[in-house]
């Protein structure tokens, strides 16, 4: 969400009447101007214990308090003013133009006098958790926040508004682990060999128009009737879900064919399946592939087949596949034939998987490699304690090994609690869904997911969106130079840049295998690289990336993003034996610095304490993405000049973060919005 101040917005209706929403009528009589005035700012968010003391967020769970804050150092002209704070149902620009009146939905406006002291002094709870998140089949109810300084009960000049856009000021979301409002019908039928299908759709489909299609492809030894939990969940939110008989025993390549033939089958036969109930209701332009295990690689391979014209359908092509979720996939097929390319992609995986184990000694069990291969919008959702079988709903054991094993119901909460916002995001363009992925897991996760489940959330927006990459370690492979050409200086220990490949077949750490725990390389087509280093106690340490002069103006940019993980079974990781935090500092060309501690938002988790693959405990390294709003570094008048940032420094030890540890960093970038 952008953070900017706009002074007044003037709308004019075009003479052709194209702006009827704003004008409220046709323009046959000419132009009718409507003015919506107010200053647009980000207000809604949540307070933090440490600097920057507040973070703007997009989404809140139903029942959670909503806060707002004003930084007097950003808005000095407001100091001393008193305004009424309203929370209103979100309106579009046209709706505000038609009706600027303020109707508070929290029980009445509150009064706020702007203090010049700090953002903390201007932080207010604007709702205690009373707002509804019931959006029906949609996700998130939108609300706008208005600070009415002229106290006239309308949005007008001099007032502040968070909203006034296609995107609301904030959203309240219901628990995504819970079923949606629609009743669901389940049918099972066969179109012939390997065309058995178990399909779920809303019972009122006749009145719903065209619905997106979710295709579910099972794994080896699984049944296509074992994904009813996915079927019921998504169908209750208005989707058609078809889980099909998958030809997995020959291998993932054969499975990829059945993903495609079954998609064609339901599209070709919607006029006869279930008496034609689906006829005309399947949107072949919005297809989602969900695959598990061999089916997890199968759906990736199926997409690659479409890209490579190795399968040509009369009904759909690769552009119609808008999202792929791959659950614990194997890596049997060469990277040149099995790759997500730039499709929206999720890798879902459990650290306790005893089948697709992720062991570095396995030649076909490197699911994390698929995340590294993807270059569209991509997500890695990784859960400790979850076994292979828990992604389906068959009456089997968990196929798991390790401590603190997660129950099936909790694994399903994680699976479904994230799958729904992902589908909403990539199929329907849902706005609040993105908060599940842009924010660290401890900061925002499915409401119904029990707190004891430890998960890591790795997310990167599509490379095509053009962020400024400070360092992704893919080029300029010597440690003193970043991939963007900036100088890298550090006093942390044992700094190594390299392929994310654990090449000795063991999770036991040795100095000769600095990328220990990096099971993100499967074959010579995998090229993901990162940096690793460690530090010890006592003392403070740093790793600093210089920003090249041409890219030092960050004033129009939105976020700093990077991903980090602890190095499994390293002596410093074992000595820390805890989640890890660090401080991120920006320094401008005048030497002014501002720092934020990542513990505000979540933790870099300790690798899952699973034994095997060498002495000790600790499974694969678990990346988490940290995303910091750049303007947060200005809070309370830090004096930092975002237009002239010369360095980004990661600081560790002492009061700056965890006292000791082994850390990997990757994809350090500036997000432009």
């Amino acid at each position, binding site marked *: 969400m952008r953070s900017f101040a706009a002074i007044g917005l003037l709308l004019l209706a075009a003479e052709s009447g194209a702006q009827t929403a704003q004008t409220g009528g046709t323009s046959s009589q000419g132009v009718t101007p409507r003015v919506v005035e107010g200053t647009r700012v980000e207000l809604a968010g949540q307070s933090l214990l440490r600097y920057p003391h507040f973070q703007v967020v997009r989404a809140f769970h139903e029942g959670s308090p909503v806060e707002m804050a004003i930084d007097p150092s950003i808005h000095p002209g407001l100091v001393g003013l008193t305004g009424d704070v309203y929370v209103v149902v979100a309106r579009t620009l046209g709706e505000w133009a038609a009706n600027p009146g303020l109707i508070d939905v929290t029980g009445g406006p509150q009064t706020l006098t702007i203090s010049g002291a700090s953002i903390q002094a201007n932080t207010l709870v604007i709702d205690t958790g009373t707002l509804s998140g019931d959006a029906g089949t949609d996700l998130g109810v939108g609300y706008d926040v208005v600070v009415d300084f002229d106290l006239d009960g309308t949005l007008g000049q001099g007032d502040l508004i968070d909203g006034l856009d296609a995107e609301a000021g904030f959203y309240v979301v219901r628990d995504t682990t819970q079923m949606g409002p629609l009743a669901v019908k389940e049918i*099972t*039928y*066969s*179109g*012939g*060999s390997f065309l*058995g*299908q178990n399909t779920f759709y809303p019972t009122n489909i006749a009145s719903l128009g065209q619905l997106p299609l979710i295709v579910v492809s099972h*794994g*080896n*030894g699984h*049944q*296509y*009737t074992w994904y009813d939990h996915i079927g019921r969940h998504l169908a209750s939110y208005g989707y058609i879900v078809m889980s099909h*008989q998958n*030809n997995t*025993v*020959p*291998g*993932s*390549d*054969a499975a990829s*064919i059945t993903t495609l033939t079954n998609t064609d089958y339901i599209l070709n*036969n919607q006029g*006869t*399946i279930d008496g034609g109930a689906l006829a005309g209701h399947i949107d072949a332009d919005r297809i989602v592939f969900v695959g598990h*295990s*061999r089916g997890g690689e199968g759906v990736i391979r199926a997409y690659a087949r479409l890209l490579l014209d190795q399968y040509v359908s009369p009904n759909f092509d690769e552009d119609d596949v808008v999202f792929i979720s791959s659950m*614990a996939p*194997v890596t*049997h*097929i*060469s990277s040149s034939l099995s790759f997500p390319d730039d499709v929206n992609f999720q890798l879902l995986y459990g650290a306790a998987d005893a*089948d*697709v184990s992720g062991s570095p*000694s*396995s*030649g*076909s*069990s490197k699911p994390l490699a698929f995340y590294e291969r993807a270059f569209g919008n991509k997500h890695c959702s990784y859960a400790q304690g979850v076994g*292979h079988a828990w992604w389906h709903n068959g009456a089997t054991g968990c196929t798991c090994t390790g401590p603190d094993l997660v129950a099936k119901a909790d694994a399903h909460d994680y699976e479904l609690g994230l799958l729904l916002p992902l589908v909403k995001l990539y199929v329907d363009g849902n706005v609040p869904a993105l908060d599940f992925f842009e924010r660290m897991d401890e900061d925002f996760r499915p409401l119904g997911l029990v707190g004891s489940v430890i998960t890591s959330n790795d997310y990167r927006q599509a490379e095509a969106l053009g962020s400024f990459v400070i360092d992704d370690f893919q080029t300029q492979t010597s440690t003193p130079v970043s991939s963007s050409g900036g100088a890298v200086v550090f006093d942390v220990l044992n700094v190594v840049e390299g392929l994310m490949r654990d090449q000795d*077949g063991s999770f036991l750490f040795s100095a000769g295998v600095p990328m220990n725990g990096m099971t993100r390389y499967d*074959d010579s087509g995998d090229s993901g690289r990162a940096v690793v280093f460690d530090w010890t106690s006592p003392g403070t340490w740093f790793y600093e990336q210089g920003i090249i002069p041409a890219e030092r103006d960050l004033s129009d940019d939105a976020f700093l993003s990077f991903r980090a993980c602890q190095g499994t079974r390293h002596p410093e990781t074992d000595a820390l034996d805890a989640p890890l935090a660090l401080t991120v500092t920006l320094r401008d060309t005048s030497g002014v610095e501002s720092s934020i501690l990542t513990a505000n938002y979540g933790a870099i988790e300790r690798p899952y304490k699973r034994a095997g693959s060498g002495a000790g405990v600790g499974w694969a390294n678990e990346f988490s993405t940290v995303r910091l709003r750049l303007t947060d570094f200005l809070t309370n008048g830090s004096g930092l000049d975002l237009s002239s940032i010369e360095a980004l420094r990661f600081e560790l030890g002492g009061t700056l973060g965890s006292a000791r540890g082994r850390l990997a960093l990757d994809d350090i970038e500036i997000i432009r919005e």
Partner: protein
Amino acid sequence: MKNVTRIALALLFAAALVASVRAVQSAVQLGGKEPRRRAVEVTPTAREDVSALLYARPFLLDRGYDHVWRRDVGWVQSGWVLVLEVDPELARPTQEFHPVLYAGDEVLERINHGFPSGRIVAVLPSALDIDGAPTVDLAATPIWFGTPRLPEQVDARIVAEELALARQRGAEPFPADMIAAAANRGGAVIAFPSRDELHRFAAELVLAYAPQEDEHARNMLAPPVR
């Protein structure tokens, strides 16, 4: 040569043999993908792991289909439907590599997994002679579990290697009386329009011979769309 020396030499030989087998197994586990050459694991004999032939019936299709159970994709127009008694642990489904089921120079198409039932219903492609008998003579065709890999990665070269290794280890066809009994239970050649009907027939055999896998069979027998 003193007995102690003989014993020591024998122990040394045995240790070397075990080490070589483990080296081969390790190479298999680290092995990669098609089309790289893989080290071949020591194969079990047919008697221990594919212990009996319970049913055998020739079939013929009006419309054939691709035999995708090998890299050099074949064609199925006719052949045998077999029911085999196997070690269920070798048939346990996994996402990683699992032992491939071979018959002579062919990879068997498995209708069910064989776990936990220990019974596999399989299709063995074969031409038919002018009398309608499969040209693949079960009396001359060993059936065995081979090296763990994906069937879709197997080609003629790998099949030949596996067959040679199986014969070295003593793999033999089933006894004539067992084959005769199985064929008697199966009966005369049966014709189907297509794979669809063949698979529904095979699913009924799963229900009959491997009832522990009835869910799999019933899912294959889902009502056809009309």
